């Protein structure tokens, strides 16, 4: 009992902070989502309007479009990051000249704020001044303009996200690979498994928990991507890159529509939880159930 009480006392500061900065704001957002509230309008009062905001969402074509754009973005980005991250992690497991320097450089994007990543990529991508359109044109005769081409804008954002976040995946996968016991892999060779079979029968199941955790983190992050996209394309051209995060941002900032913005946030949170749950159920739950 003594140690139990001590445990709570030691946890208390964290719990208090978490309560004020995590739980309370969340409850407040849920509360606001049931109201019509525009604090910067002529009438700044908060008016309870039941489920009106939620009803509105279902018919909000821009919101629905932003969800599908986001899902496509997340699928492309997270899957590419996993594949590239795994290949890099395997490469870093081996020795090669310049490995330490390469590994350091490779993690640099991680320490950059998204807003800066967005501005740098904007600088690199803007036609007539950007280095990338220039060389694409000079070397391959391809002319791209993220200001007018939805595909180019969308692809650039995915590549920017891969560039920014793959190091995170690499780092977690390296940690997972390093901690794998060597014996089952040697045993599998003796049991007659080839490289491909070892990968699917031994490696993948053994690093699955780390992979799922990484995907959770990337999924949650990617679903609320705002700053980089805002910087780079502002959600355009048209609504080609108007992800939910950008949509909420536009709803809340130019329009100062706090009530409806909160409603979208709540729904997006819900969708995120559902996505993570689906992932967990398909990847890990069958195994854990038998534990």
């Amino acid at each position, binding site marked *: 009992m003594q140690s139990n009480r001590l445990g709570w006392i030691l946890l208390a500061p964290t719990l208090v902070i978490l309560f004020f900065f995590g739980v309370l704001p969340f409850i407040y957002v849920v509360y606001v989502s049931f109201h019509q509230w525009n604090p910067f309008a002529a009438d700044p009062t908060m008016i309870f309007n039941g489920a009106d905001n939620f009803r509105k969402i279902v018919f909000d074509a821009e919101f629905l479009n932003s969800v599908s754009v986001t899902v496509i973005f997340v699928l492309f980005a997270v899957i590419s990051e996993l594949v590239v991250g795994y290949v890099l992690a395997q490469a870093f497991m081996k020795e090669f000249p310049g490995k330490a320097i390469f590994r350091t450089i490779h993690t640099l994007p991680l320490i950059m704020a998204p807003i800066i990543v967005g501005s740098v990529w904007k600088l690199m991508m803007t036609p007539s001044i950007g280095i990338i359109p220039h060389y694409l044109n000079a070397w391959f005769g391809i002319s791209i303009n993220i200001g007018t081409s939805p595909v180019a804008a969308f692809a650039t954002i995915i590549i920017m996200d891969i560039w920014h976040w793959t190091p995170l995946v690499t780092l977690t996968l390296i940690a997972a690979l390093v901690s794998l*016991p060597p*014996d*089952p892999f*040697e*045993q*599998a*060779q*003796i*049991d*007659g*498994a*080839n490289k491909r*079979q070892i990968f699917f*029968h*031994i490696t993948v*199941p*053994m690093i*699955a928990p780390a992979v799922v955790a990484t995907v959770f983190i990337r999924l949650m992050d990617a679903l609320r991507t705002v700053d980089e996209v805002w910087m780079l394309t502002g959600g355009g051209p048209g609504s080609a890159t108007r992800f939910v995060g950008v949509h909420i941002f536009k709803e809340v900032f130019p329009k100062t529509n706090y009530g409806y913005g909160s409603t979208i946030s709540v729904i997006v949170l819900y969708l995120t939880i559902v996505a993570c749950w689906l992932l967990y159920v398909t990847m890990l739950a069958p*195994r854990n159930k*038998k*534990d």
Partner: protein
Amino acid sequence: MAQVKIDNVIKRYGSVQVMHGVNVDIDDGEFVVLVGPSGCGKSTLLRMLAGLEEISDGAISIGDRVVNDVPPKERDIAMVFQSYALYPHKTVYDNIGFPLKMAGRDKSEIDQKVRGAADILDLTKYLKRYPKELSGGQRQRVAMGRAIVRDPQVFLFDEPLSNLDAKLRVTMRVEIKELHQRLGTTIVYVTHDQIEAMTMADKIVVMRDGRVEQIGAPLDLYDNPANVFVAGFIGSPSMNFIHGQIVTDGGVRQFRSDSGLLLPLPQTALPDGHKVTYGIRPEHIAIGNHGVPLRVVVVEPTGSETQVFAKHGGDFVDALVKDRFKAAPNSEVRFVIDPANVHLFDRTTEQRL
């Protein structure tokens, strides 16, 4: 089934050489035990047999084929690791069936073989469990099952019993030996435990520091150890070694230790003054009225036997006798030694004379 030939095998890790020309011939169906203290290179040799470690020089052949460059999966060997190396995410059934699945056998054949192995090893109840839900002994048997479903040319075991408690170790020792009698497959078995080696092997290979010290049948090694190392390693409790020289005292040729203890000698052509190490096994010493006088240090009764530790000056000698025996510390005890059981070793080369 196959014979195995290890021919002048050398192993280097970078510039460090850990195996210095090892030669072992293993007959078809033989149970060979590699034994030696920790770090002597037993696992390395076994892993070279398995193909998990490259051979720096020399040749290893399984059957009639030199396998130096053959990857593990094509060597047709099964191996049981000290850690058992079970696949943590697979059930017992899938663990045992894994090699068959990799070999592309059909489901019904796999099922039949897995159940057959589970039956032999008493694992039928646990087929649906995961490794972490098993005890050490059960895990060990799963690893065995995964090896025997293969029906390989050679079984390799790396200290498979060293993580088990003493009682289970004895049971599994018997089971492995029985398995060998039933299957008749060549087995190479690594252990640091000389009792395991003595009880299981057809042939023992004693290793030290990456070299083979002696190869022979268990009793052969016990009766005729080639040098001090083998003599001390084989047999429990260990042989007594006393340093001294050969003298003629009162017209009788005897051994005199550095502390002046006089012990009986077998027939020998060695000249007086030759420096030797005198070896006598504790179980070859009896307690009587006319033996060599020593002082009791400790008496350890185990019920069936009594071990008596005694000394003379700086020389310690222990005896293992069947009879119950009691003596106060520092009292006199007389050890009777039959010269026929004495081993003499050269003091500098440590080789048997």
